[in-house]
């Protein structure tokens, strides 16, 4: 094979990969847009589509209808936006950890960070008797402190992925035990409150929550884009990466901090909604069929899983509204199972 045709083939492959990434993102964005529109339209307070649109533009046009505006602007919009932002954050946190630690099970909801947030929140609810915002702040600090503890405990002339994972599961086990212990000591209504928090809900979504999480993402996403350039070296494995330069450790730490930031802010806003962080990375990569690292796609998948799950949670059962965390598990998991089985038929995965 001549040099020219070889280069040509690489160019073609690159081109195909880029177009695969583009079409995947486009498909995800379309689905996301549809789900978002549906979230603004569906509800037990019937509002015709036109009125929804009118209400959305009412701050500009001044054409207001107070009860419709309350439902659209104060209930549905913040809820949908918060689902979007938190889903994207969880997705990014998950795929960063899975990539850094090179294990599909190593998402923050398995290696202890979600446990840190949860244990802190349960402690705040059951022992301190706190509610609402104070619990969120506690959970945020819990996530950050746990991540820090895992990193420090795993540090020994640098950190290896394997050590972080093992320290993380040790930490997760301890924190889960602490939660169980608090559960057995509390009164039933405190346990209910804590349990509801642990499952994660969008029911209390307020515009303020969106602003806080959105603001955090405005800082974290550019940081992530900056740090991601260092990743290519890292994916070759610890030893190769170390040989490539000294900046690896620093960008690894930076990426972990960013991932923890995403997880902590999202958890503080909606609770440790299960499985979104776990499932987004693998799903994005399946969709890309090996043509990219899948960070942006994982964010889109996370947002989509969260938004669709909340639609199902709100409208599936006529009389019972379930918290979104009940459904994300099922929704994300069924999607993953379907992909596992269909890609399994067509050949090897990964």
């Amino acid at each position, binding site marked *: 094979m001549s040099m020219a045709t070889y280069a040509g083939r690489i160019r073609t492959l690159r081109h195909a990969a880029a177009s695969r990434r583009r079409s995947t993102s486009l498909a995800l964005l379309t689905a996301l847009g549809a789900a978002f529109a549906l979230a603004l339209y569906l509800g037990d307070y019937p509002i015709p589509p036109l009125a929804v649109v009118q209400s959305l533009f009412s701050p500009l046009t001044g054409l207001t209808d107070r009860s419709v505006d*309350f439902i659209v602007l104060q209930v549905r919009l913040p809820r949908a936006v918060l689902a979007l932002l938190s889903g994207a954050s969880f997705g990014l946190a998950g795929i960063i950890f899975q990539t850094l630690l090179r294990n599909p099970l190593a998402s923050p909801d398995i290696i202890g960070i979600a446990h840190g947030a949860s244990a802190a929140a349960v402690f705040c609810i059951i022992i301190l*008797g706190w*509610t609402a915002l104070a619990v969120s702040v506690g959970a945020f600090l819990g996530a950050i402190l746990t991540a820090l503890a895992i990193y420090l405990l795993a540090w020994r002339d640098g950190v290896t992925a394997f050590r972080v994972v093992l320290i993380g599961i040790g930490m997760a086990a301890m924190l889960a035990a602490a939660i169980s212990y608090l559960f057995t*000591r509390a*009164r039933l*209504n405190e346990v*209910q409150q804590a349990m509801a928090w642990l499952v994660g809900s969008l*029911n209390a979504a307020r515009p303020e929550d969106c602003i806080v999480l959105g603001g955090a993402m405005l800082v974290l996403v550019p940081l992530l884009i900056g740090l991601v350039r260092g990743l290519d070296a890292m994916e070759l494995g610890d030893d190769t990466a170390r040989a490539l330069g000294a900046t690896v450790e620093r960008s690894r730490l930076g990426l972990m901090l960013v991932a923890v930031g995403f997880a902590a802010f999202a958890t503080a806003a909606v609770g440790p909604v299960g499985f979104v962080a776990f499932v987004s990375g693998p799903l994005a990569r399946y969709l890309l069929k090996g043509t990219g690292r899948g960070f942006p796609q994982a964010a889109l998948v996370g947002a989509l899983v969260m938004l669709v799950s909340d639609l199902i949670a709100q409208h599936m059962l006529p009389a019972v*509204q379930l918290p979104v965390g009940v459904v994300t598990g099922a929704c994300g998991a069924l999607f993953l199972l379907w992909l596992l089985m269909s890609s399994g038929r067509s050949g090897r995965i990964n």
Partner: protein
Amino acid sequence: MFRAVAFTLALFTMTTLPGMAQGWHYVGGDGNAVELDAVPQRIIASQDAAAGLIPLGIRPVGIYADSAVADAKALQGLDLAGIEIIGQAWGEVDIEKAAALEPDLIVAEYWPLESTWSGGDDVVSALAPLAPVTGPEQGASILTLIEDYEALAQSLGADLAAPSIAAEKSAFQAALAEFKAATAAKPDLTALAVWAGADALYVAATAGSSELMDFANWGLDLIDPEVADDRGYWEILSWENADKYQPDLIMVDNRSDATMQTAMAQPTWTLMKAAQAGQVADWPAFWLRNYRVYASELAKLTAAIKAADADLAP
């Protein structure tokens, strides 16, 4: 801006209803007064408030519960026909259904320890934009709480003198008199309130629950655990230490039938002489909200006290 919208919305929903001439005023358990231009007609109630109000003739338009309605002990036996259920899990309330009900008032119970209303902050902050939230305060007595509901119901237009309502109250008063007579007849009888799990026996502190404080006030000698846990609700006893206290009468939490079965399945349950002798009764833990159920629970307890041998324990 959010508050302003909420407030105008509340005003808006009120003015669209056929208003009554006189205004309405109520001071809630949180100490804040609620002033409305008319007596509220459309009420959304928490499950416990509904259990307090419905037997007094005030029917809410919507109820939010923190469990499936079938599981909500306080609501059992009440006619809920025509009432919209807008929440059946902790922290979850269908805010759109609630808005469509156009409530004038949200009635819940104030929890002084958590300084929030029944259902928790998330639910209350979701409902608060629709209408003012108020209600009685949970305190040292279920009887007082029921009386608070009477006052609230009366202000909402209930006729407490209606024959069926008055009959329930007098039946309760008769049951109470019987209970007091029974405890007075057995001054040496001691009782212990417990929750039983496979892991441990949980002995309740009297001050941790309103109905236990009522019973103590009415002459029942409740044994208080020596060391309450960090929250002051329970002493947790290993089943190896099940005989730490020897009451004449054991009261077992009856929110779930399972508790009694679990207790009886433990090999050391009968280390308590009262358990051995079958001197075991129901403890209606935390769920009493009206005269009807209070009277029937009191009657069961009175019967158990009368039947019990008061000199069982040393």
